[in-house]
């Protein structure tokens, strides 16, 4: 089973790295979406079907569209300006920031109690139990997330609609 894990992690990390290096913004966005697909494959490997399909549905279905629209509407075409490396100070500050984030992440992962090595043999959780769990103990967090999403939705609607004040909403 570890052989599949290696392939999947290679896929995820590879796509992310290449996405970072490419000049063409659209290609890098698509590679980012590729790495999300890799994450979904990882969930499948780990036996959590529901989370994998949710990942595909949400990330590849919707958020990829948001990323691509954002890329399109902000930049005209794919000719990025050349990035210059003038000074050592920019390199050092970059290193410090990257190192800090990496440190926090690794600390959090190592501190977790569950045992990484036996992940794949976790019991296959059926969707019904997952639903019960969500509606039971975790109901509060579900409602908060729901609230957050609706607020975001309303914000988007307000932001988009006041662009044309004189265009009546219900034109024929």
């Amino acid at each position, binding site marked *: 089973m570890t052989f599949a894990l290696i392939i999947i992690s290679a896929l995820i990390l590879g796509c992310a790295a290449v996405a970072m290096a490419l000049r063409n913004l659209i290609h890098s966005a698509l590679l980012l979406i590729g790495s999300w697909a890799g994450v979904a494959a990882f969930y499948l490997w780990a036996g959590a079907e529901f989370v994998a399909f949710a990942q595909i549905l949400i990330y590849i279905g919707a958020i990829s569209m948001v990323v691509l629209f954002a890329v399109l509407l902000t930049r005209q075409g794919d000719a990025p300006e050349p990035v210059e490396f003038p000074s050592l100070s920019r390199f050092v500050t970059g290193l410090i920031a990257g190192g800090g984030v990496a440190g926090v992440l690794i600390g959090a992962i190592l501190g977790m109690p569950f045992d990484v090595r036996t992940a794949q043999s976790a019991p296959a959780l059926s969707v019904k139990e997952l639903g019960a769990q969500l509606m039971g103990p975790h109901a509060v967090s579900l409602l908060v997330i729901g609230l957050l999403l609706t607020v975001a939705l309303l914000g988007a609607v307000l932001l988009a609609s006041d*662009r044309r004040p*004189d265009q009546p909403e219900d034109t*024929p």
Partner: protein
Amino acid sequence: MSVSDLSSFTPSSGPTVRAVKDPFHGDLLEVSMGPQHPSTHGVFRMVVTLDGEVVVKLKPVFGYLHRNHEKIAENTTYLGSMPYTDRLDYLCSMTTNWAYALAVEKLAGQAVPDRAQYLRVILAEMTRLVNHSCLVGFLFNDLGTSFTPLLYAFREREKILDLFEALSGSRMMCNFQRFGGCRVDPTPEWLAAASRLVDNYPRFLDEYETMLTANEIMLARTQGIGILDAKLAVNAGITGPCLRASGYNYDLRKVDGYGFYPRFDFKVPLGAHGDTYDRYMMRILEMRESVKILQQAFRDLPGGPVMDPKAKIRGFRPKAGEAYGRIESPKGELGFYLISDGTPNPYRYRVRPPSLINLTLLEEMCLGHTIADSVVILGSVDIVLGEVDR
């Protein structure tokens, strides 16, 4: 109404047109819905400036089918121009022939026997059925159906064109009217077949109305689209179903009373809003009126000669002078203005094309609508490029 304010007349009742340049909008997109376009009914071109979906500016471009029909007419005899009039509005050749014959008879003072007058009314109303069923079919094609209403309309049109072929020899290029009457006297079988066809024509109209007139998508796509104001339409010379759809009662069959139309009682339908839906309904209701006229005409068609015996085929030289004859063709007022100088060829031969002049207000109708609507509005105005470009 002084001169100044009319030329800058903005359609008050139409959709609001955004005058101020909105910073949020990027550059305007100019689309040339060019001569080769699936829904411009022939080689007609509209240079449309789009702001996103909405039409901001629309310039029609003509001349792709220009054959200089009037110059040709000046170099041929009066009779020689008759087959060319079929090619003006190639959907209704009988009414165009009649308009030309009417103008020349007015120019030369030529009498026409009763049976020929009745036959002309019969053929003109059958042409109106052909043209309106064509238009309604093409309008639904522009609205996006996959050819079904068009083929129902064509099924009915073909039956009438077969009758024209049996009478004049050709389906669309009939070349049937002469100065002083008609060329061929219809046989009794032809008359029986024609009246049978006319009697069950309303069945086709009922099928059409149940299928499409109350269709929600049709109502959404055509009501309130391309509104034409009656006063502006009169000033812009719009005639025919487009003018009556705006509620203005002007039908040459009632106003001029040419031919034997005063002998038939028929009603002229009027619209209320002047939008694309009204223009569509005008055609449907006019078809029902034409069926009534045809039934009366078949009932009391007199006997007698079809051609005035004194009329001369060759060596026809009307006296010097001029005349302007006009009829109510299915598209509007079709007029022929002839100046003769005594020679067999006309000195000046002018066609007043309803299709071209009905396009005067195309831009005012399309402003503020989306590009999908401008195609539908053009379809509802019913133009034929042979007549527009001559």
